[in-house]
Each structure stands twice: as C-alpha cells, then as structure tokens.
C-alpha cells in the first residue's frame, strides 16, 4: 500500500510529469511563469484544486456515474465538478483570507480551464485507481506541476536578463527552454513503469 502510493507519487511528480511528458496544463505553464511569485501562487492553488478535484471526481464517478450506467458522461460531469469546486474555493478564500485572494487573483478562476485538472480526473478512471490512489495521483500531479512551473519561472527570470538573439526573444526562447526541460525530464522515464 505504502509502496504503491510512493510509486504513484514519484511517477506523477517526475517520470510522468503532467506538463513535460503528458503536455497537459501548458497554458498556465507558459502564461504565469513570467514572475516567480505569481508562479508560486499558481502552483499552490493548482496543487490544492488538483487534489480535491481528483478525489471528488472519483467519488462522483464511483457512486453516481457507475451505478446509473452513464460513464460516457464522465467528461461533462468532471468539467461541472471542477468548475463548481474552483468557484467554491474562490468564494471561501475571498471571505476567509482576502490577502491570499489578492495574491492568487486571476490565477484561481483560471484553474477551471487548466486541462491538467480534467486530465487527472479522466486518467483516474482510465487507470482504475481507488480512492487513496486517486488522492495521491491528484496531489502528485499538482506537486509535479508546481515544481516544474516554479523552476521554469526561475529560468525565465534569468533568461529575461541574458542577451537572447532578437528573433528568439520572448515566447520562442521560452518554448525552447520548455522543450529542453522536457528532454531533461525524460531522464526520469526509466525510473517508474507507468
């Protein structure tokens, strides 16, 4: 059990990183990696939402969709759950901690459209995880996303100050950097068999 959980965690954080090997959640990965502070806020918020979304979508799949025999509606209902969840979390944060709400700002609602969240929910179903595994899978995905996002933001802050050739400035060099990062993460592939 513990070994299995550790395996899932290492696998999702490093070997099958959601951003760099599954290419999910690329939009916030490119969009909010300009500043390291923003990237940290986004990473924390995404980690939180991913874990919750993974668990709740698993529960709905197992106890609503399967008994009613309507598993083909999984994608639609998962989108519904994620949107409601993000909205609820935003409401809670806004009233409980306006400061955190101001720090996270626009990134919080943006998570609704982060395909990594939907990806986690759907992969849970495909890989037939049980509840504990689903929670770990969601948390691991969020952790992996967060690590990659923050380190990528750190890289981009340094690239900003270096003499990049004119045609490569901005998005092109960022994409090249992301590609090199993805290649570096390929080194983890042999570690875990997915």
């Amino acid at each position: 059990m513990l070994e299995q959980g550790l395996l899932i965690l290492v696998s999702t954080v490093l070997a099958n990183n959601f951003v760099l090997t599954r290419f999910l959640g690329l939009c916030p990965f490119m969009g909010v990696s300009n500043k390291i502070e923003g990237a940290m806020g986004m990473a924390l918020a995404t980690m939180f939402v991913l874990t919750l979304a993974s668990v709740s979508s698993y529960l709905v799949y197992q106890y609503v969709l399967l008994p009613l025999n309507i598993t083909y509606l999984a994608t639609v209902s998962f989108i519904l759950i994620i949107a409601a969840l993000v909205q609820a979390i935003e409401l809670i944060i806004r009233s409980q901690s306006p400061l955190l709400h101001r720090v996270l700002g626009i990134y919080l609602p943006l998570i609704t459209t982060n395909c990594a969240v939907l990806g986690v929910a759907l992969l849970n179903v495909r890989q037939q995880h049980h509840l504990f595994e689903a929670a770990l899978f969601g948390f691991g995905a969020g952790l992996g996303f967060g690590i990659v996002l923050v380190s990528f933001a750190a890289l981009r802050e340094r690239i900003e100050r270096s003499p990049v050739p004119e045609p490569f400035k901005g998005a092109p060099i960022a994409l090249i950097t992301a590609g090199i990062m993805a290649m570096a993460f390929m080194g983890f592939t042999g570690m875990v068999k997915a």
Partner: protein
Amino acid sequence: MLSAILGLSLLALTLAALLVWVARRFPADSDPLVVEIETLLPQTQCAQCGYPGCRPYAEAIAQGHAEINRCPPGGTATIQALADLLGCEAKPLDESLGEEKPPLVAIIDEASCIGCKLCIQACPVDAILGAAKRMHTVIADECTGCELCIPPCPVDCIDLIPAPQVASLPNALKRAQRIQMQVRA
C-alpha cells in the same frame, strides 16, 4: 437516456446547492464600516495619505491602523465627517502629507506634449487619453486632481487649474468601485 438526464441534472443541482451554501456560509468581505468610510473620502486616489488609494485608506481607518487626518484633498470637511461617523475627536489635518486645496483638474498643454505615455501610467483613475507619440489629453470629468501625473512628465506640460465645478463624489466613488472590480476580475 432518462437516467443520464436525471443523473446529470441531479449532479448539477447538487453542485449549485453547494455553491449557494458556500456563498451564504462565507459572505464576501466588504466590512460595512469600510464602505461607509470610503463613501466619505474624496476618491481622488492621490495616495497622499500613504496608502495606495482611498479604499486601502478606508480599510486602514476601519482597522484602527491610521489616523483620520491623513487626507489632504478632503481637508477639514472630510475629517469632521469621519469624526462624526466614528465618534472620535476631529483633529487638524496632518500638514506633513500635503495641504488642503480647492478641487483641481489637470490640463495638458497640448502644444508641448511629446506623447511619452508616462502620465497615463501614473493616472490612478484612467483620466488621461492618448497613445505613444500622439498628443495626450485629460478627460476633465474623470480627473480627480490628484497631481500624480505631474512628477513623471518630462516636459512639464501638465498644469492644475481650479475645477470648473465641484467634482461629483457619487460618480467618483462609482468609478473607483468599477476599477476595483476590474482589478479583482
């Protein structure tokens, strides 16, 4: 087919109920006292009080972190109104922050303007209109006379003239709230 429709509607309804419950259980911020204090402030967003705008200053007053005599554009009248609202002594204006002046609006000497956009970035209420290397102008109705556009101007082409009429406070407040909504959204 029927179970699909029922199941999905049930799911949606449950989530909607959850959202309604959360919204009721955790009402969004806006301390009524902050709102009341904010309506008394002149909405110049001039930051002379040391806070980035009228809303943050109102929040600081409500939490007891700030004195009520830090608003030079509001002057004695605002201090008196705040003292009445909060039930404390009215104090003379803190002169180190600025002096009380009649309502002003900025005006750009359009012949000297070089279109550098620096004043547009400085304006807290988006009252300056213009594009790079084009002449800028001030929308007098929107201008609060906060003077924040004066220091950045490299050619010193902005002047302050007495406002044609007393700036309408309800409008200014509405505008400030709109800008806050945009920032939040």
